[in-house]
């Protein structure tokens, strides 16, 4: 038998893999086609014609802009909190061994490992038990909780690759703890934090299950979309919003990929 490692794949495997990738991508590509259809009452295929008028219509919709603003604001605040908490935890877990270390990694992963509906309803019942009114902040509270894990995953991977002797050298050369953090640790973990932050932003921007439980009157963009999905009223606008959402979430993913591809992988698997 031959044993060259560059052997090409069996034909059947190639076909199965290609079909699988098509299955993953065709539905998303369809969104782009539908954003330009002239049909506004049904989901007719093939589209009877193409137009760009819905882009303008969507641009002038104040409800879409308001929802977008709320989503961006929540995602930004939740990401900031997640970066601080995730980095602290990653630093502590990766630089020392202590009692309860395993329990802490489990605690971080739990909000994402259990179905979102459990996180959502737990928070909702806790808010109602404590008579906390729903606001943007209750949504932030929920989002930050499950965003910590993505920052943590990225930061832990980078800390593992950063040699401890760099930090010791910094101390030996006379830097204090804060200088070491500012000039040695931060430049080393910076891109990992940026990547983790972007993934956290994408995760929060897109979140709907926990949000439905922790929002009152506030409408984030996913909540707006969900209402359109349940009761379609303005299909063309929804098509355009869907396309924009795909584009907006793709940018951080591709950027995160390029920021972390040297050596370690983007910890997207833990979404």
């Amino acid at each position, binding site marked *: *038998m031959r*044993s060259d490692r560059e052997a*090409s*794949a069996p034909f059947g*495997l190639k076909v*199965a*893999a290609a079909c*699988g*990738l098509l*299955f*993953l991508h065709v*539905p*998303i590509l*369809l969104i782009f086609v539908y954003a330009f259809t002239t049909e506004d009452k049904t*989901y007719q*295929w*093939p589209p009877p014609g193409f137009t760009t008028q819905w882009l303008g219509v969507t641009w002038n919709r104040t409800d879409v802009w308001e929802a977008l603003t709320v989503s961006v604001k929540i995602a930004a605040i939740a990401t900031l*909190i997640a970066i601080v*908490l995730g980095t602290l*935890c990653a630093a*502590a877990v990766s*630089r020392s061994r*202590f009692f309860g270390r395993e329990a802490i990694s489990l*605690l*971080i992963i739990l909000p994402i*490992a*259990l*179905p979102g*509906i*459990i*996180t959502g*309803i*737990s928070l909702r*019942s*806790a808010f*109602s*038990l404590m008579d906390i009114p729903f606001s943007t902040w209750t949504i932030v509270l929920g989002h*930050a909780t499950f965003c*910590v894990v993505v920052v943590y995953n990225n930061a832990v991977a980078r800390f593992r690759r950063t040699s401890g002797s760099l930090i010791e050298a910094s101390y030996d050369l*006379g830097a*204090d*703890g*804060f200088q070491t953090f500012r000039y040695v640790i931060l430049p080393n973990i910076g891109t990992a934090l940026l990547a983790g932050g972007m993934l956290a932003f994408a995760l929060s921007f897109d979140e709907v*299950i926990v949000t439905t439980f922790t929002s009152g009157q506030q409408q984030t963009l*996913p909540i707006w*979309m*969900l209402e359109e*999905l*349940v009761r379609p009223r303005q299909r063309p606008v*929804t098509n355009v919003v*869907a396309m924009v*959402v*795909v584009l907006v*979430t*793709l940018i951080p*993913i*591709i950027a995160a990929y390029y920021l972390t591809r040297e050596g370690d992988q983007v910890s*997207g*698997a833990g*979404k």
Partner: protein
Amino acid sequence: MSGTVALTDRGAPAILTARNGLLGALSDLFWRKPKLLLFLMLLPPVLWLGIVYLGSLFALLLQSFFSIDEYSGMIKREFTLKTYGELLQPANLDIMIRTVVMATLVTIASAVVAFPIAHYAARYARGKWKALFYLGIMLPLWSSYLVKIYAWKLILAKEGIFNWALANLHLTGLLEAWLALPIVGGSSLSVSFTGTFIVFVYVWLPFMILPIQASLERIPVSLVEASADLGASPGRSFWSVIFPLALPGVAAGSIFTFSLTLGDYIIPKIIGTSHLFIGQAVYAHQGTAGNIPLAAAFTVVPIVVMGLYLWMAKRMGAFDAI
């Protein structure tokens, strides 16, 4: 900021002077007492997750032992197992069985579809193709969940691309025969369990591909070469060497697909029948019905099922593959 490190952690006499200023003093303190720094670093995340997350989870579990007064609709805050008893009513048992069966089928189908993609990406894709495969899996994973469901609403609509394609292939009769079947059928694909199943598989597929790919990448090439040297055909090598070693990856992926299907309530609501899944039941009970105890008891079901599942997966070595 002047001076250098003053003390060792053993408390040896200072060779150099202590630092000036508050920051310097803090820095020295952390150097002498690394445990203190560790404690301060862990405090914020543990407090946050402990209070916000575990606190809420505990509050929820507590409420599952309360019950609702049938006449006033008020929640009685005293210990009872009555709410758990309600879970065993036939209608609620149906919901649980339906959800677990769906989660099992979705998991099996995802594994079957995911394996060839993961296998190709891990063992055959090189260089540019490798990056392409990686992004090709990551982009759908991270694309908006709702947009993905919306895309399937477009595809499965009566006037949509799926029926159009079938009509052009003259296969409409086949679809009608399938939809006429009990349970899996319905008036159209977007209001049938078949539709729900397809969307579940689509949305969770990347979660299955990534762990399988990770476990396949860890298999040393020399093992496969040894198998070939010992006379095994490529097919035999696959089934006797590669596949068993990839099983922990499949188990790891199945944790995601199974857990996500158990808790989802949006997919069956948008593409599916009027029969409820666990997530929808939770949502309905806490929302309009205001029956938080029953909703809480319902969430305990996925927690217990996942607990059992994780325990089995751990025995299969799934955690090494995540």
